[in-house]
């Protein structure tokens, strides 16, 4: 009884979603079958092309290449953004001095720097990591500063009243308070880093999933283009999920 109720509730809540998903897939399939194959291929053809790419090993190889780029750039962004953000939050003069410039960089479309990076650093792995880093670091930094500066001064006072050392103040107050904000930055940074990753693969040197798309496009392999977009799209959705989960996990003490 309870089970069937839960099932009915589930159907009511998730029914429209599955319905719309099936409808969307059907629409794609029908439209694809009736369109010029150079412009649109049906879902089935996209999936079979994807299976081919997977079977040949190309997909995995390019995925690994992209993942290495993404992870290196993003790890660097975290390693710089978090400590710097906390430091700026604690050292007021430094923060006041740097804040406007960080704001400017946060608002500047980093993609505009790609031509400079290209002409200065060429086509290697390092310039691409730099691009991913630049895309991701400012959201992390900006949100960490915003978080750390919003610490209620009362809590700092409590720490002082209990004779907290500076080190303990960082580990018991500053970092736990700031983490949820940093995680918001991480979530934003993931999205931006993904754009940076593909931009680096498009505009610096063609590697990874970016290359997969480019090559398919140049060969008028529309099925390959759709397959690659589907893969990157799913990665994007998955990473967003991860970002959201991280954000919620670290924010569980907030209401």
């Amino acid at each position, binding site marked *: 009884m309870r089970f069937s109720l839960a099932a009915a509730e589930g159907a009511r809540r998730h029914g429209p979603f599955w319905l719309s998903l099936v409808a969307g897939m059907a629409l794609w399939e029908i439209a694809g079958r009736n369109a010029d194959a150079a412009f649109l291929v049906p879902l089935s053809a996209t999936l079979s092309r994807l299976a081919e790419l997977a079977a040949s090993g190309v997909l995995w190889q390019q995925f690994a290449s992209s993942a290495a780029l993404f992870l290196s750039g993003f790890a660097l962004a975290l390693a710089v953004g978090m400590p710097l953000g906390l430091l700026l939050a604690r050292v007021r003069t430094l923060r006041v001095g740097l804040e406007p410039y960080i704001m400017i960089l946060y608002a500047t479309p980093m993609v505009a720097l790609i031509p400079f990076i290209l002409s200065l650093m060429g086509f290697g792995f390092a310039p691409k990591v730099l691009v991913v880093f630049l895309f991701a670091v400012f959201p992390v930094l900006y949100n960490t500063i915003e978080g750390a500066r919003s610490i209620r001064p*009362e*809590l700092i006072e409590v720490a*002082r*009243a*209990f*004779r907290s050392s500076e080190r*303990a103040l960082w580990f018991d107050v500053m970092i736990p*308070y700031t983490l949820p904000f940093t995680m918001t930055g991480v979530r934003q940074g993931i999205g931006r880093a993904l754009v940076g990753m593909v931009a680096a693969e498009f505009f610096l040197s063609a590697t990874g999933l970016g290359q997969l798309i480019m090559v398919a496009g140049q060969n008028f392999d529309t099925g390959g283009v759709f397959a690659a977009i589907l893969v990157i799209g799913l990665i994007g959705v998955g990473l967003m999920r991860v970002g959201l989960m991280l954000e919620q996990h670290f924010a569980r*003490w*907030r209401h």
Partner: protein
Amino acid sequence: MHAMAPQQTGEARPAVRIRARNLGKRYGALEVFRGIDLDVGDREILSIVGPSGCGKTTLLRCIDGLLATDAGEVLINGEKVTQPIAGVAMVFQHFGLFPWKTVYGNVAYGLKMAGASKAEIAERVPYFIALVGLKGFENAYPYQMSGGMQQRCGLARALAIEPSVLLMDEPFAAVDAQTREILQFELLRIWEQRPTTMLFVTHSIEEAVLMGDRVIVLKGRPASIAETIPVDLPRPRTRETLRAARFAELREQVWSTLLSEARAAEFQLEPAR
């Protein structure tokens, strides 16, 4: 439990735990208080009452060493205070609980800062959580608790370091009237169990009289001590105390001291409930 529990020893108890001489504090052109002298004896509760904004909270922070004074000096247990010293704990009006820590983590915090070992923390924290009546809420986060429960937790955090001096900064001002009354008697019960020197800042006249062995009335701009009123109500103080004729007399005495200030009405004093 070395170093943190001096009040248990009994013998070499100093007669004066807190001694302040000629304290003065100003913020730029604004002088907050001046010429404050006070002594608080061992296991004595001294209430400080005054209109809101009169500087009593600032005074308490100066005594704790959280704020620097501009004149005079504070000695706690004979030690000159320039920053918060060991063996002194504070309970805050805003509770000051860390929202990312559970009740257990918050109560353990003061001990951790005092350098207590893991074993000591594991031994003492449950005791103090139970003492303030929060048993069963060890894993609750502050946002899951009412204001009254949050302040119980704040009290446990302060008591856990077994302070020789407790500084209370309007601890019950941010909770509703019923909870406030409950917490007042809880605090009195705990004090009977573990008597300690206490400086109790409040803007409620009734609370000042109920808690204190003496009540200091702060008045004026800059604030100074207008009067010190000894409270000769017997302890343990209970709900009965509130109905005693002597309680009403003392309340009126504090009230009239505060009112004698011509502009008292402007201070929006809380009339005795």
